[in-house]
């Protein structure tokens, strides 16, 4: 589907010829930039055009390309003087992309979206019918659902991005159950695995961070320049989202079969079959990196009878105590609702 390198290149050449015919004398650098390639690539492309032409392939039959002055001149390319129509998959890719954009909350340029969609249908010609049908069968969901607060946050972040303004965020860190306040310089809004994130330079940690939009409790545009420092480089969000840090601590857990999904879901250091001396329900023993023991404790409470902490040993004690404390509070609650407030002191917080 993505095509081979040579069909990709052919497609570019067939688009390049009409453009260069209309823009005679264009500097090499500008032409290369227009097609998103290096000047070296462009020169290779021109060299290839130079040896192609109509049957016979005598000098007069060949495409005439000159660029020795640093400017590109092209002639004798009548049969391919116009760009090709869009193929079915090409139109599908753009139509689905446009519809996806149309569902981004707060994207206001509806006229541009509607205009582009209509003209795209024209550009596909005969393929338009099939493309429209196929595009209707490919759906990408980037909506924010009924979460009005999230749509607001998204809109605020977009204002910050468009105006290069600094943002103030109240951000929840669920692994620590903490609310943090920070000023950030926004870099981009990106979706990863169907969720929206703000990538920004965070002044609190002095680094580039990804903020999940549904964890931003409040966002405010500040009256301050929000241009990120020169050293702020976007990360490859897909591989970096769970990038472990060398400061992480390593914990060892035994997993029962029903908790084996943890291995696919979190970055684990190692997985092995549960050894002889393991917890009797364990099928796997895994080593897992975590920035914070609180996060692991929360994971273990959630896994219930599906997992046991092996190392550090105090982690198992902590989890057990946290669970017992919660159970004790439930008992107290039941006693309270049955016969008024209980007289003895409640258990202390498990933390």
């Amino acid at each position: 589907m993505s095509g081979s390198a040579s069909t990709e290149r052919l497609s570019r050449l067939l688009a390049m010829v009409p453009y260069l015919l209309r823009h005679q004398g264009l500097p090499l650098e500008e032409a290369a930039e227009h097609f998103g390639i290096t000047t070296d690539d462009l020169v290779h492309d021109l060299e290839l055009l130079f040896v192609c032409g109509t049957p016979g392939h005598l000098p007069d039959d060949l495409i005439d390309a000159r660029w020795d002055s640093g400017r590109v001149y092209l002639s004798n390319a009548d049969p391919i003087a116009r760009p090709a129509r869009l193929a079915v998959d090409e139109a599908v890719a753009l139509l689905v992309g446009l519809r996806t954009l149309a569902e981004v909350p707060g994207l206001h340029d509806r006229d541009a979206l509607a205009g582009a969609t209509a003209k795209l249908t024209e550009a596909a010609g005969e393929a338009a019918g099939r493309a429209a049908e196929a595009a209707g069968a490919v759906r990408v969901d980037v909506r924010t659902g009924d979460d009005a607060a999230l749509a607001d946050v998204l809109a605020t972040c977009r204002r910050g991005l468009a105006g290069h303004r600094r943002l103030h965020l109240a951000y929840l860190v669920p692994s620590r159950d903490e609310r943090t306040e920070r000023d950030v310089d926004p870099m981009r809004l990106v979706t990863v695995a169907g969720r929206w994130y703000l990538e920004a330079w965070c002044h609190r940690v002095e680094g580039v961070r990804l903020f999940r939009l549904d964890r931003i409790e409040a966002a405010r545009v500040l009256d301050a320049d929000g241009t990120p420092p020169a050293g702020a480089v976007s990360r490859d969000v897909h591989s970096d989202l769970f990038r472990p840090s060398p400061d992480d601590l390593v914990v060892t857990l035994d997993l029962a079969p029903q908790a084996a999904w943890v291995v696919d879901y979190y970055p684990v250091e190692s997985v092995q079959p549960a050894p002889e001396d393991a917890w009797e329900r364990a099928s796997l023993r895994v080593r897992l990196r975590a920035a914070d023991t609180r996060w692991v404790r929360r994971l273990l409470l959630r896994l219930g009878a599906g997992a046991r902490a092996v190392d550090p040993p105090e982690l198992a004690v902590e989890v057990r105590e946290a669970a017992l404390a919660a159970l004790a509070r439930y008992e107290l609650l039941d006693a309270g609702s049955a016969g008024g407030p209980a007289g003895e002191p409640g258990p202390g917080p498990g933390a």
Partner: protein
Amino acid sequence: MASSGTSSGAAAAARGARRTERLLNLVIALSATRRWLTKEQIRAAVPQYADCATTVAFERMFERDKEDLRELGVPLEAGGEDPLFGDEAGYRIDRDAYALPEIDFTPAELAVLSLASRVWQQASLAGPATRALVKLRSLGVEPDESSLVGLEPRVRTSEPAFDPLYAATRDRAPVSFAYRRAGAEPSTRHVEPWAIVSWHGRWYLVGHDRDRDATRVFRLSRVSSAVKRIGRPGSYDVPTDVDPREVVAGTVGERATRRARLLVRTGSALAVRRRAVSVTPAPAPAADPPGDDAPGADLVEVDVADVEVAADELAAYGDAVLVLDPAPLRDAVLRRLRGAAGTSPDPAPAGAAP
């Protein structure tokens, strides 16, 4: 294009360049002619076909080239002036059908198209998306992206089943594949694909399951074999009254929600509070007993779609969150807590995969 300077990389690059040359000469030859060109004429007209030692090799190469051009949207016509000509029919490219009409995109329209093409940046349709944009940009308009700065909605297609299932959906061609359900052996399914849906970052196929004679949803990452076509393109109709996203949402996503009442320690469970329907200070008797210097609590109401998913989240807060009702949610949380405390007699399932 070659990734390295090794000799094999250089050789591959040279082969690729020769192939591009051949295809370009083929397009030019077929566009320049008004008459139909026979295969023999084409073989003579395109110098790179001289690489083929035999007619069989040439014909095989020409077949592949025709397919490549069609995929790029080049309308290759086959036919002839003389209906008696039979097999020796000719080929040409109709320049009017080939050419993109003069379309006046505004800079803002080209900007949204540019952004639309980048939705696929790390996905299967990246190639077609980029090619389409290059064609449209060759019309000469420069996009104005100022209002779209920093917006990057993206999908990924890391599932190998995406390409064949997308193509089958596009062509309305029935398929079969092995499908692995959680905790079960893979089984072969026969499906008429209706739509392919990205939902919460995962791809799903919605279609008619022939064996079960019912609408079914398949997660692409669970397709565990090659996808095989078992029928011709266009051999079934897709119902028009089905919204594929609703089918997926109804199967894997949000079910009807119900309201849960929680007793949440003051200052805790911030992520739960963020999506609460209401938060009110809890009356004293319900909270911790008097005399204890523990912080107070709030009565927090949230809407819960899936009991097990909600229980996963709430149990993780330990004693900071107590579920008052509904009972199934409360039981699901208690089951996890007893499991974690080691007081649970049975290894009841807990912590369903997210």
